[in-house]
Structures are given as structure tokens and as C-alpha cells.
């Protein structure tokens, strides 16, 4: 996608004017979209960004006429010269897929499980070309699947969705979107559910789709990095409204709306500014069940004044692009930290245990975990083994944060379970302070915070009870446990007033705070953080990251930070271990690994992470890995990465390749300054 400067002379393909969407709610009606206008020109990519609940998806569904029953829509949607609003379902059927096509977020559920992928692509072709014969439609499906990069498309048209990986399924959905040469493709969070290297592949497929059909695109995402690299123009949404709109460069480099600036400031960066404190936006987006008199962002905005609470700001032009802020001029040359002062969390707890020890605090040696794969017969015989974790060793010192990075299937979460003794390792040992960790003996010292804050909190217990529970289990009297629980809740920023509420009454970030308070209850020395912020919105995520940093400083905690988001890991970790298919491929000091990655996988992983910086994104060279992660049931011999390794598939000689096939590369220092498990590791 080549971002170019656009003149207003280019024709509009799709435009939305004063769009409103209302959903019925148990308390009345929710105004999900409150008057949105934007237009899309021929061949351009419009990025729509905003956090969950800002109305991005509702706008897209309204354009497609796919709002759920009960939803009310107002305003106008024009495709070229045709008004789409009020067209009715039959009329919209002829528009959908042919004029405007859509790609949805979750590729695992977007395809019907009972039809082959070929049928589902062919069906899209025949929907608008009823005269096409079944065979011709399948032929076209094969062609489309080849275009989006499905290997052996001809042999695979008859396969069913469950036989494809998530990334491959999203390609199928993109092929469906391309089927009728649409003029507009709307992609709603097309890569959000995918791993970062797969995301790069899917974005590439989307680019192919645009090149092939010449379609303009609306790219809806919460990921500013994805937008920076793909979009010509950007629309920022907040609470059902457009709050800023302009070219990608203007919005990213000269934001004139405090919300946009705040979003950029709360984003951990893979490039520059790491180590610096994130500047989260205080509070949470407003509920939209009643009219908001002034600016919807005012309650969270450090610049807000009287006028902001009473008078709603209109979109107006400031410095060459549109913004909805009364005081936009004040943002000239301001950095996020100039406007958003990071609130220091009120950590009242002190380290009540000796924290400094000689040598590593937590040590894992040669961890192996195999799961039996059983047949369906009468005796459920074991037919194979799933190699989840294979010979993983690492250590963690007191007060240190070790980042464990990897994509799905890399064994991250299995390692967390092994450390917590929630699973028995097949081989290897875990030691805390030199003593083997087994069963519940070390439960006090090792605690865990899970990814899904809602799923890990009992919905029928109050916040105070949730935090007090581990204390009660360990024999603390009821009143003492309660006192301590309130103290812990206060230290994670949940004051007394909220301790008697139930999990559903809290926001996602607050729930994660309860999870952290609970993990801290027993005064552990090591916290295992298993994707603690990946379910959270960016502004909230920054808040939780800051809290974790403060707690570490105050209590001298050690963190094992498990994440797939490299930017977050770069921000928080002291050392980093990169996992691929159950093995550590590279480990070292944070900056050494990120600035001088020596394993081809680490290099590909880092290059795949989109940066929230349009200029850098445009010139970046991405290493696109081929294919999917192999099955851990039958991992490749020798180096597990070789089936996707650009070096193995490229520059290596046959003799060198046979080494990769035959010999497992050990995780040793090979002159790169830190251990790398590659026979031919080195700079790109």
C-alpha cells in the first residue's frame, strides 16, 4: 500500500454523514454511534482507530446494513451516487460483497464449520453471478485462494475450515471479500486475533486483495501501529464520535485532540522512549446510555475546563486537519507527558521480607513437558506425544523482570503452569532459592496473575473477599484477612468505597488490579504474569503496567512476564527469552535482544511488530515468514524453526542445511554477546 498525498479532487466511493446507531439495552437505549461522518476516496486506505466500545464496529455494520435486529440507525451512507441507508435487506444484498465487502475479526468463527472453504468462496462468487456454473465458481475460488497465499490451493478447496490455521482462515475470508471485485473492503480488526508474524502475512494478503481489485479500504483497528503502516488517512473515534481526522502523518505527528495524544503516550514502543514511564489516560470511557452534554472526553482530559463540560466541541480545522477540541491550539508542540501527568500509584505496602539473595531466586533447569495424545479407541491408547515444552532453562534474580516472549503454541503458558506446580513436568526441575518447588509448598512465594481478569475472579465474591481468600486459606483470622485485603486493594488503587463490589461492577483494568492484589496477598517473592495486559485497552493497559512497575520498586518483587506483545515486553522487562515451539531460541539483556537480535526467528518477530510511526513504517523492511507454526505433535527434527527460517530457505548451502536438519542447535553464546540457539545466527 503506497500512502500518497491525496487531493480532494479524487472521487468519493463511500461516505458516511451524521451516522447514528442505537442499541437496545436493559436500561434503555445505548447510543453507540453519535453522529459520525467520514468519506473514503478511490483507492485510499482509511484507518479508523479507537478503543473498545467507541463505535468503530457499529459504524461498519451500519454501512453494511448488518446491524442486529432492534438496532436503530440514522443519517446517511452513500456508495458513489447511491444512498444505502433505508435500502432494505433485499437492496443491500446486491451491494454487500459486490460494492462493499467486509472482513471480520475472528477468523475462527467467521467460516461456517460444515461447508468446505472452496464452497464458501464459490458461494460468494455465485451470490452476485448466479449464471456462473458450479465448476467455474470453484475454479475462481482456487484462483482467489492462490492469490491470498493458501499453499496448494487446488488440493485444499475441498478442506473444511477446521483444517486450516487462524491465519489461513483469515486469508480465506479475504478471498471471499475479493470474490466480486468490490470497490470498498471494510476490514474490522482483521488481525487482532492473530499472532504478530501471522498478522504480517494477513496484512500482506489484504494488500494483495486491494491491488488485485483496486478497492479502497476502511481499516478498523485498535492498534495504532497497524494503522500507521497501512492507512493514508486516519479517523480517531471516541465515545461514538469522530474526535480527530487527517492524514496519517498529521494525526500521528501533530495530534490536536488530547485523546489522540493520550493514546500515543500510553502505548509502549518497540522503538525509542522505552524505559520512560507510560502516560495513561485516567478513568474509563463514558457509558453511552444517556446524552453527554459537553465533550465526552472531558472527564478524563487534563485540559478540560468549564466550557468542555457544557458545550460540545464541533469538528473544526486546526493546523490542516480536523479535530473536536475547544483548546486544540494548546497542544502545539506538546508531548504526551507534558499533558498527561502519570499518576503515581498509591503503593502503601512495603517489602516485609528479605528480598536480596545470593544468585538467582527462581531457576528452571531442563524443563520438559509432553502431553499424551490419545486415540479414540476403547482403551484410549496413547498414539503420540505433544511436545509443549522442550528443554527450557532460565533463571530469575530478585527484583528482576524476565520477559518470556512467543507466539501461540510456543509453550509460554505451559511454562507458567510448570513453575506454579499446576502441572507435573515430564523432566527438569524448578528451584526457588535453591530448594525444589513442588506442590503447594511454595505457593506463598510464587503467585500468578492470569490473562482474563473476568474469568479468573469468582463472580459471586466481592473484591475484598477475593483478595482475602488466599489469606483465609493460609490460616489468617477473618478480621485480620479483611484488614489486609483492604490495605492491598488500596495499594492497587481501589479505595475502600469499592471493596464490597462484585467483579462485574468493575472495568477490565480494575478487575486486573483485583487479580494483582490477590496475587500479592501472600507476600510472594515472584509474580508470574501470564499475559496480564493483553485483554485490556491501550490506555488501561498503560495504567496496569505502571502499577506493576511501582509495586516492583516498592516490594522488590521478581516478575516473570509472559506476553506475545513485544512492545510491552520491551517496556517492562530487564531480560528477555524468546520461545519458539517449546524451545528458547534466544535469551539476553533486553536491549541486546531487541537491538541486536541474532536468531532469525527473533529478527522476524521484531520486524513484524507494527510501529505507531507512519514514516518509520513506510520504510521498514518486514521479514515475512512463510507458513504456519508446525504441529508440536510432530516437531521438525534438528532446529525446530528451520521449516520457516528465511536463512534455511535462502542463503544456506546444502551442507549447512543438513546441520540444521540433523542437529538441535544448543542455546549457547556464539559471539553475538548473548546465547542464541542457531547454528548460523547473526545479524540480518
Amino acid at each position, binding site marked *: 500500500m503506497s500512502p500518497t498525498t491525496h487531493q480532494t479532487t479524487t472521487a468519493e466511493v463511500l461516505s458516511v454523514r451524521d451516522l447514528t446507531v442505537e442499541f437496545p439495552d436493559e436500561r434503555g437505549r445505548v447510543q453507540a454511534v453519535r453522529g459520525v461522518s467520514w468519506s473514503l476516496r478511490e483507492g485510499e486506505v482509511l484507518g479508523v482507530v479507537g478503543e473498545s466500545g467507541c463505535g468503530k464496529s457499529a459504524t461498519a455494520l451500519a454501512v453494511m446494513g*448488518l446491524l442486529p435486529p432492534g438496532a436503530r440507525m440514522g443519517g446517511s451512507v452513500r456508495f458513489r451516487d447511491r444512498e444505502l441507508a433505508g435500502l432494505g435487506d*433485499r437492496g443491500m444484498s446486491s451491494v454487500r460483497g459486490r460494492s462493499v465487502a467486509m472482513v471480520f475479526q475472528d477468523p475462527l468463527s467467521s467460516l461456517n*464449520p460444515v461447508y468446505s472453504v472452496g464452497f464458501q468462496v464459490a458461494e460468494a462468487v455465485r451470490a452476485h453471478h448466479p449464471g456462473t456454473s458450479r465448476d467455474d465458481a470453484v475454479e475462481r475460488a482456487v484462483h482467489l485462494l492462490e492469490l491470498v497465499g493458501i499453499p496448494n490451493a487446488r488440493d485444499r478447496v475441498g478442506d473444511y475450515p477446521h483444517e486450516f490455521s487462524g491465519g489461513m482462515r483469515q486469508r480465506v475470508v479475504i478471498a471471499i471479500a475479493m470474490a466480486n471485485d468490490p470497490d470498498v473492503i471494510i476490514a474490522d480488526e482483521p488481525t487482532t486475533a492473530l499472532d504478530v508474524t501471522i498478522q504480517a502475512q494477513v496484512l500482506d494478503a489484504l494488500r494483495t486483495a486491494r491491488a488485485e481489485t483496486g478497492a479502497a479500504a476502511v481499516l478498523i483497528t485498535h492498534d495504532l501501529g497497524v494503522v500507521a503502516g497501512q492507512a493514508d488517512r486516519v479517523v480517531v473515534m471516541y465515545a461514538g464520535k469522530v474526535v480527530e481526522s487527517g492524514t496519517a502523518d498529521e494525526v500521528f505527528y501533530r495530534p490536536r485532540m488530547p485523546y489522540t495524544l493520550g493514546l500515543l503516550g500510553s502505548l509502549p514502543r518497540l522503538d525509542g522512549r522505552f524505559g520512560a514511564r507510560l502516560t495513561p489516560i485516567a478513568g474509563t470511557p463514558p457509558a453511552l446510555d444517556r446524552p453527554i452534554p459537553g465533550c465526552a472526553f472531558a472527564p478524563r482530559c487534563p485540559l478540560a475546563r468549564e466550557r468542555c463540560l457544557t458545550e460540545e466541541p464541533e469538528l473544526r480545522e486546526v493546523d490542516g486537519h480536523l479535530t473536536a477540541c475547544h483548546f486544540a491550539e494548546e497542544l502545539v508542540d506538546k508531548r504526551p507527558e507534558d499533558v498527561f501527568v502519570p499518576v503515581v500509584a498509591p503503593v502503601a505496602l512495603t517489602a516485609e521480607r528479605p528480598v536480596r539473595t545470593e544468585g538467582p531466586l527462581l531457576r528452571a533447569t531442563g524443563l520438559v513437558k509432553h502431553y499424551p495424545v490419545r486415540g479414540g479407541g476403547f482403551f484410549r491408547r496413547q498414539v503420540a506425544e505433544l511436545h509443549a515444552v522442550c528443554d527450557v532453562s532460565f533463571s530469575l534474580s530478585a527484583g528482576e523482570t524476565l520477559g518470556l516472549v512467543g507466539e501461540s503454541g510456543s509453550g509460554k503458558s505451559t511454562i507458567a503452569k510448570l513453575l506454579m506446580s499446576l502441572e507435573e513436568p515430564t523432566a527438569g526441575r524448578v528451584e526457588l532459592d535453591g530448594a525444589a518447588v513442588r506442590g503447594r509448598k511454595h505457593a506463598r512465594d510464587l503467585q500468578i496473575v492470569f490473562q482474563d481478569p473476568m474469568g479468573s475472579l469468582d463472580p459471586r465474591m466481592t473484591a475484598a473477599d477475593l483478595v482475602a481468600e488466599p489469606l483465609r486459606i493460609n490460616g489468617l483470622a477473618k478480621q485480620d484477612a479483611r484488614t489486609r485485603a483492604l490495605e492491598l486493594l488500596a495499594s492497587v488503587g481501589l479505595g475502600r468505597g469499592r471493596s464490597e463490589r462484585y467483579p462485574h461492577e468493575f472495568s477490565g483494568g480494575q478487575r486486573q488490579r483485583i487479580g494483582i492484589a490477590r496475587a500479592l496477598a501472600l507476600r510472594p517473592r515472584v509474580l508470574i504474569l501470564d499475559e496480564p495486559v493483553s485483554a485490556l485497552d491501550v490506555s488501561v493497559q498503560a495504567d496496569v503496567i505502571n502499577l506493576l512497575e511501582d509495586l516492583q520498586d516498592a516490594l522488590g518483587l521478581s516478575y516473570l512476564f509472559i506476553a506475545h506483545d513485544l512492545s510491552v515486553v520491551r517496556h517492562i522487562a530487564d531480560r528477555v527469552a524468546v520461545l519458539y515451539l517449546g524451545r528458547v531460541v534466544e535469551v539476553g539483556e533486553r536491549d541486546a535482544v531487541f537491538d541486536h537480535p541474532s536468531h532469525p526467528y527473533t529478527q522476524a518477530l521484531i520486524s513484524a511488530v507494527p510501529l505507531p510511526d507512519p514514516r518509520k513504517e513506510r520504510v521498514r523492511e518486514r521479514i515475512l515468514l512463510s507458513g504456519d507454526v508446525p504441529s508440536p505433535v510432530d516437531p521438525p527434527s534438528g532446529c525446530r524453526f528451520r521449516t520457516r527460517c528465511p536463512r534455511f530457505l535462502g542463503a544456506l548451502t546444502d551442507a549447512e542445511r543438513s546441520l540444521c536438519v540433523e542437529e538441535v542447535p544448543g542455546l549457547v553464546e556464539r559471539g553475538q554477546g548473548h546465547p542464541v540457539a542457531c547454528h548460523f545466527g547473526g545479524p540480518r
Partner: protein
Amino acid sequence: MLAYVLRRLLHTIPIILVGSFITFVMVSASGDPLGDLLAKQPPVSPAILAAERHRLRLDLPLLEQYWRWLTGIFRGDWGPSVTRVDIGHEIWPRLLVSVRLVVLAVLLALLLALVVGVISAVRQYSWVDYLFTSAGFLLLSMPAFWLAILLKQQAIDVNEATGSTLFYTVGDASIPPPTGFWPTVSDIAGHIVLPTIVLALTTFAPWSRFVRSSMVEVQQSDYVRLARAKGLPRRTVLVRHALRTALIPLTTVVAMDLAVLFSGAVITETVFQWRGMGSFLLSAVRDKDIYAVMAWLLLVSVIVVLFNLVADLLYAVLDRRIRLG
């Protein structure tokens, strides 16, 4: 597939063996088949009693009784009956009569459940939905015997009012049966109407609720949304994408309910005085006729097991994610 079917059938053998043994023991313990004979006035001579006891194998240990019953089955010997009829000779025609009723009722119930369930789901929270919902719950809570008696009475009233036999309310066929093929068919069809309605109505109600909820769920699914985003007409999406997937779990429910249907048929058959499996079981229980009860249980359990297998196979055909093995 064939290997799977064979393995599944193999699995059912121990289940039926254990099940039949337990029921055999329980039925034997539930009363003395000679009770009526013993209570007779004037008393029956001990010689006759002993002979009868020997004929009914009551002089043998329980295990041996069971063993002889079990091995007898394979020779076509269903065991001695208290009433001195040949159980094998008696039960097959009755099975045919009952299966006729159950199959027809299931087909009718399925059709009704689909129509009502789909309309309710598509027009969710409309008056049609509320109407079907109320009717469904009314039928759900209505005992089969009550509905059957009510319907029968109505039919008799109609017959009396019109002075001709519009509805047959007694028996599964006329006695003596009419001669010729078409008269026989129409006679059987005439007799089957009322019991089928009773059985279908009581069966379809829960199924329609099931179809409704699974259709509502599927309609909100991402793949139905994608199908609409392709530009497919609403009706195509509804039938091809929504209904097709919503039907899959119904196969299990229907197969499971077949067992219930057989017991439901007992009541319906009794009300309409059919000579089916229902009255067979009732008189067998009344007479404490161990081997007749066992014959009924064996047949019904084999049917249940078979239909469960059929449901699992259908499931795998309908949903390719399910792998048999």
C-alpha cells in the same frame, strides 16, 4: 467408518449384557409369578404347582435362569410365559404396530418442531414467537394420557354428532381386518391418526424449543454474518447457513428421545387400546411374566442403542469437525 461402527456395536454388547442381568434380577425379585395360582380357591394341587414352577424355571438358581434365558434368545426361544403364549410369536407383530406409530409421530413432530422453531427464532419476541412459546409450554406440561383421553372423547363426540365413524378411536386396525391391499392401508391409516397426533404434539414441544434456541444462537454467529456480508439473500442464509448448522445438535436430542417415545407410546396405546408394545408390557408386568418383560426390555434397549449409534454417525456426516475413531 465401518471399523467405527463395528467397534461401537462391540461396545454395546457388555452394556446390554450387564443391563439385562440387572433387570432380570430386579424383575425376578418383584413378585412371584405363581402368586395367582397359589391364591386360587380351591387350592391348586401341589403337583400342578411344581410342574408350573418347573416350566417357568423357578426351581433353578437365578444365575442359571438368566443363563438359560440368554442362550435361549440366540435359538429364538424367548423363555416360557405365564400365559403360555409364545413370546417370540406375540412380540414381533406388536413391535411392528408400535414402530409404525412412533416413526410416524417422530416425522410429524420433527416437521412441526422445525417449522415452529424456525419461525419463532426468525421472528424472535414477536407475537408469533410468544404464541408458539405459550403453546409449546402448554403442551410440555400436558400429560400424554390426559391429552389422549381428551382427544378420544372429542373424536367420539364428533362421531356421534355426525352419526358416522369419522375417527377410529379403538384399536390399531379393525377386527376383523378388511380384505384387499388398499382397504387395509386406509383402515390402518384411519386408526393411526389420533394416537399419532397425541404422540407428535407431546414430543414436538420440547424439540421446537430446542430448534428455536439453537437457531437464535446460530443467527448471531459470525459465519451467518459473513454469509450475509457476501450478499446472499436472507432466505439462503437462513436455510443454508443457519438451519443447516442448527440442526446438528437436534439429531442427538431426537435419538435420545426415542427411548422416551417408546414409553410415551405405552400410555397412548393403552388409551386407544392398541395391541402394541405398550399393552404387551402392561399385561406382562401385571402377570409378573418375567420373560415377557425381559423380551420387551431387550428389544427397546437394542433400539435405543442403535439409534444412538445412528445419531453419532449422522453427527459426523453433518459436521466435519467430528471425527469418529
